[in-house]
């Protein structure tokens, strides 16, 4: 139909009339709060606990409208070591009269201290009142919405992943500990069995957030964990295994050796030191007892060095000759290899460092692994005495161990990579050395 002249005029009337009958688009703002879009950029909020006073935001702000004041504070060292300094935030203010809401500060903050809050009703009659201080910025942080859920199949953010892993590790550990406790209960007297669980819990607590919850993770902690890694390494060498891929050692409930404590205090040590040492002494004793108890219930001894303690095929090797009296008990260790690569190196104590490095190779090559029994044995002996001594001995042994040139050449020729060849050659050397010692000095107990 050809458009009749003037129809447009009527159409126009129709449009306005129709619009009149529809609800208006107006939002009655002061009476009705606007429904803002998600992630609205209303104001910059500060979570001051997260702020490390790195000053990045203040430097990147194109308007220079972020004001930060801070001072340094000494922090007492945790366990020995030197005192640290840290920055404490005194003032954090943003001048919203200057701020142009570019969001650079939020982007640049490496510690998630700055966020966009949807809050927008902070108009003022005086311009200087638009400079908002830390406390106001902090209260705004409460209205920062939670981040949107990630898409299906998105990569988990690192911090969430590690938190989850830590949680799972704790759960797994608890489960394993329960298992172990059940398994160990009949032969082992009360303290040791009871000990396993709490000890496990504490370890994970300390290590929470890191994925390394393997037994030797406890190693770096000097006092309480001291006995543990030594024993574990020893046990690894001895190759006693249970089905559980789980902590190596007897674990005992932490406590304090009151006599030591009193003595040290009397000797003028600080309370902290005295307590730590007393604790260590207590642990040592408790573990020795526990091991002795377990040794009583231990099964068949096997010649440690000879038996290639293969991870896949756990052999029960209570280190008959290799280990001193205290050791054969040497409890349940995981398949030695599982703990090996990362964990062994940090364990300074019993095992000579070469062995620490070795197991990696061992896992692949049974030939290279058998010798550990011996150094371990000495290590465990040392461990009962003092951690320091153990380390020293390990050092000494380390110096002795060198590369067996013949093996090395052979392996290189056979096409092994240099690293593997060296490792195996070292192991071979250690083996030889130990065999020589045994022949010469009757190392078997």
């Amino acid at each position, binding site marked *: 139909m050809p458009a009749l002249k003037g129809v447009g*005029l009527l159409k*126009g*009337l129709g*449009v*306005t*009339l129709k*619009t*009149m009958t*529809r609800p*208006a*688009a*107006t939002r*009655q703002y002061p009476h009705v709060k606007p429904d803002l879009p998600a992630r609205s950029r209303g104001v910059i909020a500060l979570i001051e606990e997260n702020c490390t006073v790195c000053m990045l935001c203040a430097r990147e702000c194109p308007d220079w409208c972020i004001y930060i004041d801070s001072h340094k504070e000494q922090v007492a060292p945790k366990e020995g070591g030197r005192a640290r300094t840290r920055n404490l935030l005194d003032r954090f203010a943003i001048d919203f009269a200057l701020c142009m809401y570019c969001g650079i500060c939020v982007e640049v903050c490496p510690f998630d201290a700055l966020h966009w809050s949807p809050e927008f009703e902070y108009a003022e009659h005086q311009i200087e009142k638009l400079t908002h201080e830390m406390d106001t910025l902090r209260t705004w942080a409460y209205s920062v919405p939670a981040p949107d859920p990630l898409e299906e199949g998105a990569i988990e953010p690192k911090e969430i992943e590690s938190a989850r892993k830590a949680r799972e590790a704790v759960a797994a550990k608890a489960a394993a500990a329960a298992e172990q406790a059940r398994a160990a209960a009949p032969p082992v007297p009360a303290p040791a069995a009871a000990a396993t669980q709490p000890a496990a819990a504490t370890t994970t607590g300390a290590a929470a957030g890191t994925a390394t919850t393997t037994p030797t993770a406890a190693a770096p902690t000097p006092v309480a964990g001291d006995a543990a890694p030594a024993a574990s390494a020893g046990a690894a060498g001895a190759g006693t295994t249970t089905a559980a891929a789980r902590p190596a050692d007897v674990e005992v409930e932490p406590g304090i050796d009151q006599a030591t404590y009193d003595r040290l205090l009397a000797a003028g040590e600080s309370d902290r030191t005295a307590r730590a040492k007393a604790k260590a002494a207590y642990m040592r004793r408790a573990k020795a007892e526990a091991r002795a108890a377990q040794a009583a219930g231990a099964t068949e001894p096997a010649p440690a060095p000879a038996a290639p303690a293969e991870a896949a095929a756990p052999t029960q090797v209570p280190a008959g000759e290799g280990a001193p009296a205290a050791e054969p008990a040497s409890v349940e260790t995981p398949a030695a290899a599982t703990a090996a690569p990362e964990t062994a190196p940090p364990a300074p104590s019993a095992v000579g460092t070469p062995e620490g490095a070795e197991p990696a190779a061992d896992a692949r090559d049974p030939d290279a692994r058998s010798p550990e029994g011996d150094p371990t044995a000495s290590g465990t002996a040392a461990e009962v005495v003092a951690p320091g001594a153990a380390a020293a001995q390990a050092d000494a042994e380390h110096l002795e161990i060198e590369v067996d040139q013949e093996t090395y050449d052979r392996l290189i020729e056979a096409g092994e990579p240099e690293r593997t060849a060296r490792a195996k050659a070292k192991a071979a050397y250690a083996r030889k050395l130990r065999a020589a010692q045994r022949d010469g000095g009757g190392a078997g107990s």
Partner: protein
Amino acid sequence: MIDAARDLLDNYWVLMPVKVLAVLAIFLTFPLVVGYMEHKVMAHMQARLGPMEAGRFHGVLQLVADGIKFVQKESIIPKAADKWVFALAPAVALIPAILVFGFIPYGPDLVPIRSDVGLFVTLALSSVSVIGVLMAAWSSANKYSLMGGIRAAAQLIAYELPLVLAAAAVAMQAGSADLAVIVERQGWWGYIVGPLVIGFFVYGTAALAELTRPPFDMPVADSELVFGHLTEYTGLRFAFFLLTEYAGIVSQSAIAATLFLGGWKGPFLDGPWWLAAKVLALSFVVIWARSTYPRLREDQLQSFAWLRLVPVSLALLLVVGFLKVYEVGI
């Protein structure tokens, strides 16, 4: 009692003030109602809400608040202005607009001032307002004001013709220029059933132009002339001009309703309320047109008047006269 009241009202000196007060009351209420209606209707036609705060309920007292605001404003008279003319102009515009209400028949016996030539008196009065506009334009000593005033005058001359011709057609049909008689000779459906419906549209368009209401608001075209003849006005005087505009809408609607829509007559219960309803309906249409159509160009406006409306209204006059002479009933 009622007789006594009647006797009292027969006294001229009693009756006159009553009439004056009644007319003033109408004058003061209806334009405000229409003004408020304009705010709201226009807002909703633009998907807005319009005034919502004054008077608590949907801004019913918005115009009262506006009035108070206007009273408070400083009344500025430009230095170069012709002071007396400048000051008088709003009154010259406003008073004829009030007087028109005196001639409208509100009911069978409710005609404040009855006149044989009531139709032409009202049309003449409503045209006097343009004198006030011209005065304002000239005295403001402002080129925009002057141009606005001249445009208003030109517009008035152009549109007065079709307006009067359309009204004449009605007078011819009714056989009288007395508004009361015109209403009485109509059925309640008025004259829009028949050829005079064209007259109704011609009259409506011309009246819109006379009121300088959009889309015929070139005299105050804000994009070209700031605010035409109102540019220099502030405060109460400005308010008077605004009041004139709304009073004009009401009075023109009332005249149109009287001429074409049967005035106070209704399908039942004849009375002033019918007139009021018709006036409000027509005012609504005026506002509706305002929010629908864009402003015409000055030349379009003139050619539309002279080349369309005048011939059409002349032809209408011819047709109505023909029908009347040969007594073909409408």
